[in-house]
């Protein structure tokens, strides 16, 4: 047996957990006090009594003394739709293109595979302005299509599915061919059910990816009705000083973190799997 001093481990881990939890505690705490107390630098370390008022105000109106934001309810719905469309879109187009590349023989097969693969080297950040110009020319500004479609091509997801499809034994394809199943039947009855685990794991990662998008929504949305919550918060803090509506910002921050954090914690098994698999 290994002799291990476990109190060292506990100390380090508790410290790590505390450093992670501290900012969240402060945000939770900030969402329960009024703007004046926080702005005056007098916020105590225990919760105040304004929680209901702050969350209510953030959720329904989003407007404070200074803040002129959209209501959190609207921004949450936008973020949720954006995350779900990106997730389902990426999974759908990646799984069918991986299926085409693995199970068919056709001219230019490898050409298309490399074409998808190379997009790994062109993240949106390095081609911001021309991509924005293309989206603007297509009339995609301030629309859900503009917010999501340019982001749903995915080399990583395609590679992941391709990798998995290559492990499906040839005998399965042969058997279903003998049964008279065509390629679509085989996809629907065999490949899709076998891919369930991979799809679930990928969905968890992609939902977080979609929810946390920043640069692209910042460019493509201009109207308050289309604002996503992550962008909405940073607009509120753009002039951070004593008169900022800190109470509203903190309530909004807590609400904005809730869905992705809940997904990670509740679907931890899929999350860990998805993260480690998709980076291979």
């Amino acid at each position: 047996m290994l002799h291990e001093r476990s109190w060292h481990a506990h100390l380090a881990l508790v410290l790590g957990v505390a450093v992670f939890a501290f900012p969240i505690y402060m945000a939770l705490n900030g969402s329960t006090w009024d703007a004046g107390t926080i702005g005056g630098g007098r916020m105590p370390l225990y919760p105040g009594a304004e929680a209901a008022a702050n969350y209510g105000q953030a959720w329904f109106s989003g407007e404070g003394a200074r803040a002129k934001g959209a209501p959190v309810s609207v921004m949450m719905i936008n973020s949720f739709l954006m995350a779900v469309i990106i997730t389902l879109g990426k999974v759908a187009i990646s799984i069918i293109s991986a299926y085409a590349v693995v199970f068919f023989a056709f001219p230019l097969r490898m050409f298309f595979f490399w074409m998808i693969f190379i997009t790994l080297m062109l993240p949106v950040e390095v081609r911001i302005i021309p991509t924005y110009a293309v989206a603007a020319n297509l009339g995609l500004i301030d629309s859900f299509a503009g917010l999501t479609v340019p982001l749903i091509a995915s080399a990583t997801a395609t590679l992941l599915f391709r990798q998995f499809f290559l492990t499906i034994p040839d005998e399965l394809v042969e058997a279903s061919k003998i049964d008279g199943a065509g390629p679509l039947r085989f996809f629907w009855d065999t490949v899709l059910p076998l891919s369930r685990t991979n799809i679930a794991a990928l969905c968890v990662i992609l939902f977080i990816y979609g929810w946390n998008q920043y640069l692209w929504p910042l460019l493509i949305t201009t109207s308050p009705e289309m604002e996503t919550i992550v962008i909405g918060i940073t607009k509120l803090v753009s002039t951070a000083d004593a008169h900022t509506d800190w109470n509203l910002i903190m309530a909004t921050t807590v609400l904005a973190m809730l869905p992705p954090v809940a997904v990670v914690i509740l679907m931890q098994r899929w999350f860990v799997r998805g993260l480690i698999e998709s980076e291979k």
Partner: protein
Amino acid sequence: MRKRVIFNDKALPYLLLLPQVAITLIFFFWPAAQAVYFSTQIQDAFGLRSQFVWFENFGAILSDPNYLSSIRVTVVFSVSVTVLAIAPALLLSVMADKQIRGATTYKTLLIWPYAVAPAIAAVLWLFIFHPSVGLLGRFLVAIGVPWDYALNDAQALLLVVLASAWKQISYNFLFFLAGLQSIPRSVLEAAAIDGASQTRRFWTIVFPLLSPTTFFLLVVNLVYAFFDTFGTIHALTRGGPGTSTTTLIYRVYVDGRDNLNLGTSSAQSVVLMLFVIALTMIQFRYIERRVHY
């Protein structure tokens, strides 16, 4: 590696590839090609006419002191974030890998910051380090430190580094933990029987066996610090004070969107593309090696 049994439809595979290829062409290749094209053009003041100027735009950005300062900021920023996100993650994963009580609970409590958006991580730390509102900010001012990240270059950079690294530790933690769990316990037990201390076991066995993971994480963290921290910087400092937190990505955004300089902004995009291509190739060469290893 090819499958022997395949379908022979003529049109179906193209149909299946169509959505992905269409998006790739319209939103990846076409804009990238435009960036390359515009990087060799200079437009007149009204954007009506443009002229082919070879590498003049590249010369312009590389002799622009602001661009050179962005390169410096990016290097300092990325290296700091990478070190600060990897070292604590390694320590925590080594501790969590031990057979201690509550290891699963610790793991759950250590992975959730991955889900926090970079911009939100920035707001969380802003609320703590704001000089007149934040708990630690006020404390620093009270003990006489002239703390104001909105005025002080180094403090601003420190704050964006902290917020960026904080969020990334969970990711590194998970990969180190997976790496540690693949190290055979029998090797460690053998070393323990030979009388190697815990510290010695770490440096002579665990750390070298983790080196593929560490190298992989170095690349991933550099990419993260380069590209995914735009939100952190935009939310916290907007690249300021001055240009002290303007990284290369932030500069492309500012030059392209606010200063509307298509030529130099495109030249910057092309430089970044070359950089990503280099990093991706390093990553894949390494992965190829790992497959044989």
